[in-house]
């Protein structure tokens, strides 16, 4: 077995938390059940990984199998990576039948014709997700297995989720191969990024709870202002205000759990507005400024801002539009006089 493959397997196993190693090796299926029985999972990880490498040696593992183990690891720990969302466009309306084998063949063919040294691995999952792992090399160097790119494609949708490696130069090639293989004609990056792959999927597939406009002849009785612990001695003086805030919040965010995003970034290119007598910034140039909101769970924290009294209700539509517009990176320019709104540009 190749030295580099052995080292790669060893390092991959070392990444896995000790309690999960057995389960992941079983998922991998490369080592037989009998071989797995011989492993002692109670020793330090260094030793476990050495033993795994020895067993792989017996089975003559090559890079292809090692790559599968890596995909499995990244599928389970998908939230460790930063994912970007891309949308593909079809030229016509034809709905072609998706053929997985054809897709794989075309994808591999396209990449390999451009770049000889690539390792390409596919793995399908039950939710119609196709995971693709690509390790990139150059005409003179073997692929760098430690900086692979991961692509998640749901064949019934035009969306692709990519966690690219540091080498951004390979991205155009990857995109080309994707649209070629899936019979689309264009691909564009959406301004939507997060660590939580499932949340990104929730947003673009519209799987999160949304608030639909419905007409209620009477206000709903069930939504009480506070889940009172039953203490009738506490009187809320501003009950109507609290109810107003709750209603506005519900209109903006709906009731269910929000998709998990970590940032919202607003790149402002707007004019500085101040008292003209102050004479600040006499040059009429847009003021460039970057506003970034970060949080372990941005949308839930925005949802709780007004109820906590930290912001006035209703919240700015720039904040509440994030799931509907499926973006968390915005560029804001001056409002053009011709268009009363629509100042948010792609």
């Amino acid at each position, binding site marked *: 077995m190749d030295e580099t493959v052995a080292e790669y397997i060893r390092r991959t196993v070392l990444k896995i938390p000790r309690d999960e190693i057995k389960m992941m090796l079983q998922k991998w299926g490369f080592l037989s059940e009998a071989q797995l029985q011989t492993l002692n999972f109670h020793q330090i990880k260094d030793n476990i990984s050495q033993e795994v490498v020895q067993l792989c040696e017996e089975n003559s593992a090559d890079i292809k199998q090692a790559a599968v183990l890596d995909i499995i690891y990244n599928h389970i720990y998908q939230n460790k990576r930063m994912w970007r969302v891309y949308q593909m466009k079809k030229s016509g309306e034809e709905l072609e039948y998706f053929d997985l084998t054809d897709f794989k063949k075309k994808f591999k063919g396209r990449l390999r014709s451009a770049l000889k040294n690539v390792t390409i691995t596919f793995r399908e999952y039950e939710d119609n997700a196709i995971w693709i792992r690509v390790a990139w090399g150059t005409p003179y160097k073997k692929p760098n297995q430690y900086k692979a790119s991961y692509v998640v494609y749901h064949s019934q949708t035009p969306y692709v989720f990519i966690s690219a490696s540091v080498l951004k130069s390979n991205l155009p090639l990857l995109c080309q191969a994707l649209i070629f293989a899936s019979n689309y004609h264009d691909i564009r990056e959406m301004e939507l990024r997060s660590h939580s792959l499932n949340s990104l999927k929730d947003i673009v597939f519209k799987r999160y709870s949304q608030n639909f406009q419905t007409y209620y002849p009477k206000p709903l009785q069930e939504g009480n202002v506070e889940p009172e612990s039953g203490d009738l001695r506490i009187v*809320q003086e501003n009950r109507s205000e*609290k109810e107003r805030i709750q209603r506005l919040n519900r209109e903006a965010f709906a009731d269910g759990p929000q998709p998990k995003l970590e940032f919202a970034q607003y790149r402002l290119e707007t004019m500085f507005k101040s008292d003209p007598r102050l004479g600040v910034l006499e040059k009429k140039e847009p003021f460039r400024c970057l506003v970034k909101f970060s949080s372990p769970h941005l949308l839930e924290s925005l949802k709780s801002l007004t109820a906590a009294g930290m912001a006035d209700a209703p919240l700015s539509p720039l904040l509440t539009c994030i799931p509907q517009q499926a973006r968390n990176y915005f560029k804001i320019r001056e409002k053009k006089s011709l268009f009363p709104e629509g100042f948010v540009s792609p």
Partner: protein
Amino acid sequence: HVASSLPLPPERDHLRPRIDMIVFMIDIKSKYSFRNVEASLAYVDASFFLGKVCFLVTGVGRVNCCSIETNAICKLGATYCSPVLFCELELEGIRVATAQRLLRMLQICAGHIPGVSALSFVSLIRNSDDD
């Protein structure tokens, strides 16, 4: 009665009993809460400041998140001749102790403790503060 700011909404005027004490809560982590309290003080009748007003500063346990300077709060207390209490609501022991203190003060403000008036009590506290 809990309110988020003053003045109180007029529609509930007829449901409100006599007000014996007002506690202004300032979250030391939020400048907004400080400004809110400053703005609300303007709506309080002067007679309340004879011992029936108290400032309660919360969140002091989280030292890294303080947004308001203690000086500013103490100055506010001095300006309005009212005591300032500091507490941390997230710790049960302190929460209970603070509640007991406030309850004691309320009993005095409501006139339930014979021989001690709100004004005499407050001047007692202020004298010990100056020491």
